[in-house]
């Protein structure tokens, strides 16, 4: 019964969002059925549909987990966006500086002479650690500020998002861009820092599809979060702090420590987006690469009830929409792929205001009266 309720509300929220979205589609003169067929159906073709959908789901799993861990500690991490930017840049920086390849514009002296020429077996983990570490630090700062000064993490994470974007864009523009490159992107990382695309291992999946080992890492991260939160003392303390801070404190748990810890873990998880983006996909830092992954992560976590399994499923759903958006753009008269943003927003509002579904549900006897 409890499980049913956990699944019921997110499901209703999604259906309600689709109905509202359908009305918008209808009003602007397209067929909702055809639009949704494109939006959802485009994800299941092999290999492109499935490959790209899983690739798009990867960052959302990471940010969804990030928001979920913070949520379990009673914190709202709106800063995953900034954390993943810092992390992606850190991963690229290590990939450039420790990969042994000097970057040079054609005909110009090389810039960014590397510090070291590490072998792949060390370089790849080092890049990953850099990403997770940078994310953890960027997430830990608002945690620390909250623990030390009591300033609200929501505002601080929002502010740190903007600071992260500006900071990373500064480093890209002034220090790590190939001179003369018109695009705001860093130099390429060393080929030794690349991680394999899954097409290498799966027959029938071409390597041009950027689905890469980071997806496997995302699954492992789901398991890690589950074990952390429900099977370890740390996780227990994080959840206790989230559920009832004063009781937790009375029980001997240092709330301040838990806040910093949860925010750092959250930031680290968000930082893993950088692994997918830099080591597995673009092989460089690309300014402004994130399609609001950090914010969509909030929707993913909420819809997934802040549970790793739920996060995985919700990330898949949103990835399906993102994939379908491209086809909606191309094959409908009026509707554009922006409908995906709209649907995500509506889902968030409906999930947040789930109380509105309780009344009607009670009427139809689907819920016990006591559970209000």
């Amino acid at each position, binding site marked *: 019964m409890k499980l049913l309720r956990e699944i019921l509300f997110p499901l209703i929220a999604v259906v309600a969002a689709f109905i509202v979205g359908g009305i918008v589609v209808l009003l602007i003169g*397209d067929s909702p059925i055809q639009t949704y067929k494109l939006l959802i159906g485009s994800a299941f073709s092999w290999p492109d549909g499935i490959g790209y959908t899983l690739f798009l789901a990867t960052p959302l799993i990471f940010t969804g987990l990030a928001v979920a861990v913070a949520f379990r500690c009673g914190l709202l991490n709106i800063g995953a966006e900034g954390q993943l930017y810092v992390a992606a840049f850190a991963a690229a920086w290590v990939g450039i500086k420790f990969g042994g390849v000097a970057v040079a514009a054609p005909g110009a002296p090389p810039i960014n002479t590397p510090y070291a020429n590490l072998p792949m077996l060390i370089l790849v983990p080092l890049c990953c650690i850099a990403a997770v570490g940078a994310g953890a630090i960027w997430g830990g700062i608002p945690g620390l500020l909250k623990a030390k000064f009591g300033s*609200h993490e929501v505002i*601080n994470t929002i*502010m740190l998002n903007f*600071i992260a974007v500006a900071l990373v864009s500064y480093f890209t523009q002034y220090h790590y861009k190939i001179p003369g490159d018109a695009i705001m992107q860093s130099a390429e990382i060393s080929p030794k820092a690349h991680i394999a695309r899954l097409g290498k291992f799966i027959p029938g999946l071409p390597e041009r599809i950027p689905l890469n080992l980071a997806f496997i890492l995302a699954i492992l991260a789901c398991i890690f979060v589950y074990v952390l939160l429900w099977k370890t003392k740390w996780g227990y303390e994080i959840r206790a702090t989230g559920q009832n801070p004063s009781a937790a404190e009375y029980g001997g748990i240092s709330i301040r420590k838990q806040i910093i810890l949860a925010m750092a873990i959250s930031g680290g998880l968000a930082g893993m987006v950088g692994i997918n983006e830099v080591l597995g996909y673009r092989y460089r830092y690309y300014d402004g690469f994130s399609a609001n992954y950090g914010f969509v992560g909030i*929707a993913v976590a909420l819809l997934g009830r802040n549970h790793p399994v739920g996060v995985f499923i919700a990330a898949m759903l949103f990835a399906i929409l993102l994939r379908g958006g491209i086809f909606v753009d191309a094959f409908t008269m009026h509707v554009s792929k*922006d409908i995906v*943003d709209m649907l*995500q927003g509506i889902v968030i509002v409906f999930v947040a205001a789930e*109380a509105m579904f309780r009344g009607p549900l009670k009427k139809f006897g689907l819920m016990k009266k006591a559970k209000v």
Partner: protein
Amino acid sequence: MRQLLNMSLLFSTLRLSTPLVLAAIGGLYSERSGVINIALEGLMLAGAFTAASITFYASSPWIGLGAAIVAGVAVAVIIALACIRFKADQVVTGTGINIMFLGLPAVLSGALFLSSGSTPQIPRDQLLPTIYQFLERIRPSVFPDWIPSWRILTDVSLITLIALLVVLFTAYVLNRTPFGLRLRAVGENPEAADAAGVSVNKIRYLGVILSGALAGIGGAYLSIGQSSLFTRNMTAGRGFIALAALIFGKWRPVQTMLACLLFGFADALTIQMQGVAKLPSGEDIPVQFIQMIPYVVTIIVLAGFIGQSRAPKAIGIPYEKER
């Protein structure tokens, strides 16, 4: 440095601060009543898009402005229903609204104007006027010759003047009227306000709706005042800067306006310095560091290094009447 501090910098500061002031004062009404308003960004986008498209059809900025207010209020009602009636998490709801209005205007403009996310250009004479244009339109004869030397008074947008009046009006309402007292009471101690016979939720609805109306005007100023069309995500984080200014201004009207002016000044400086100013060593001054100023300042203020900035006590907590 000297060549930077000139009239155009002053103008550009006023211009860039105006939408911030309107949105921030909007946020003030909502937050002083106890409802966090992260959705200022989404409200501004709703206002900006509605203003641009309605002005395009109606050929009048005033109808466009009115429509923007209606749009802001409509979205605010959604927020209020979710946060007050259904006790949804206020921050989460606001985030949802922000994402929603990243998409919705783009979807609608795609359908209405067959463009990807922007509205058609609006002719100059159909934009929100400056004070000079406005006075000239209604009574051409009121202008004696000495006016041009007072350009600072007449070349600013009428909306800038309205924003200033809104600030003064808000300061008065908040501190000198029964409604202001109730608004503050509801945000600080809803139980006591309730016991005194104030309807907590009604005041909160009003607070959120006012914030929608003002943020809507702020958005309209962006699309049909400062520029002449709506583009996708044209607020570019201004809703969040407004929020930062509100905190920096300690949730007080005049201080909040000053914070908006400071942040507007930082923005204006960024634009002026692009490619002009050099460090003594001859290098460009990276604009990114100036862009960061409002955000860094907010974090420092919030941490209590520059005076305490204390949020309304009951902010973020849905009010549950005792039975």
